[in-house]
């Protein structure tokens, strides 16, 4: 057998469609995880309850201590046992969200630590609390300092979506498997997929510098 580049061109349109689904899953999962992590971070700081914080620490430790693949299986195979039948796509997004949220909570904790205590005190002395305190004062500062690790986390999520192929979410990896199981040219098809993933992740990871620059200007 020889490396036949024509198979790459044949597969390319479908692979790019798969790449769009991959992006869709990654963006949805990442947005949900940011929302969830933000809510948990706010709850952690405002309640300061030992039970809640302990539970969150337990959750983070579990997510960071077990493979994402096992977490995906847990969600996909175990939820139906409790009567919750999820299709592969929502199950995949749920798995990505729950996984990524644990990492985003840790990132936000670091970002929050860099916000000076005086910001809270100043807000308090001005009578600002609740929604305005977080939305207008604390969260913007937290997120701006967290941009580089958040971008890094997004590339992690982008790579993690490839695992959803094992529960038959038809994203890039799954599409490539479908193509090469039909034409028996795995090397060409997988190489093309490899390069598409690389381009996506590389562009995202390099965008960190650009994003930082942009928000720095805005802040000044």
């Amino acid at each position, binding site marked *: *057998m020889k*490396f036949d580049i024509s198979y790459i061109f044949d597969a390319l349109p479908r692979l790019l469609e798969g790449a769009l689904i991959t992006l869709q899953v990654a963006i949805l999962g990442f947005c949900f995880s940011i929302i969830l992590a933000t809510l948990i971070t706010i709850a952690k700081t405002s309640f300061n309850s030992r039970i809640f914080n302990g539970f969150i620490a337990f959750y983070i*430790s*579990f997510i*960071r*201590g*077990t*493979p*994402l*693949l*096992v*977490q995906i*299986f*847990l969600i996909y*195979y*175990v939820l139906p*046992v409790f009567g919750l039948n999820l299709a592969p796509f929502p199950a995949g997004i749920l798995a990505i969200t729950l*996984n990524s949220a644990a*990492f985003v909570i*840790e990132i936000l904790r*670091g970002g929050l630590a860099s916000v000076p205590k005086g910001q809270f005190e100043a807000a308090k002395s001005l009578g600002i609390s609740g929604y305005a305190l977080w939305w207008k004062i604390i969260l913007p500062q937290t997120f701006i300092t967290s941009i580089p*690790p958040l971008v*890094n986390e997004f*590339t*992690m999520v982008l*790579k*993690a*979506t*490839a*695992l959803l*192929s*094992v529960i038959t979410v038809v994203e890039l*990896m799954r599409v*490539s*498997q479908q193509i*090469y199981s039909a034409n028996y040219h*795995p*090397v060409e098809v*997988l*190489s093309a*997929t*490899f390069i598409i*993933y*690389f381009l996506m*992740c*590389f562009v995202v*990871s390099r965008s960190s510098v650009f994003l930082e620059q942009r928000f720095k200007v805005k802040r000044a």
Partner: protein
Amino acid sequence: MLEYQIFFDYFPMILLGFWLTLKIVVCAIALGIPLGLILALGRRSNFILISFFATSFIELFRNTPFIIQVFLFYYVLPFYGLRLSAEYVGILALAAFGSAYFAEIIRAGIDAIPKGQLESARAIGMTDWQSMKNIILPQTVSIVLPPLTNQTLTLIKESAILSTITVHELTMTGLMVQGETFRPFEVFIMVALLYWALNETIASIMRRIEKRYSRNRKQNKIVRSNIDIIKSSGFSR
């Protein structure tokens, strides 16, 4: 609701998978760290060809999902006439994946050593390799240890993906038991707990070692912020 019998009946089988996971990860690390060191030195090399090759290897493997690397190894090696069993393909893939990250960690560690160290080593007549081996690398050990541990934990978790190319490690065993018993909850909880226990054990041992090291390190004059940067960059899934 829970069928406790499954825990007892299938635990030995699961443990066998766990043992294979351990073996694979140890082999992958044993291969990956030397390869990572070579890549790190290669990236710093003055020969453009070598540094280009090392850089592209590192960037390619860091910016793609591990699952596709595994499949590429699984199909590409036989394509060029190298037929290996799934276990060996898995070890190679895991070692290649790990080495790209190890290389970046080691490179950051080398960069954290003050430039004067290398210059003085060269000034007293050591060759490049001698000063690297005797002066620079020993100093990087305590710096790179925490991120290397993090990466090891990542490799343990990524090894679960080898189940997709039919390596009979922990996750694969779990899938097989699940197919036999149709009790996914018990099985996957067992699998997850084993991974978790392994990771937590390694993490706590390394935390203790790190504490001892950092007490000694205070005497060193390595810039503190550099170490913090490296520590935070070792943060990974």
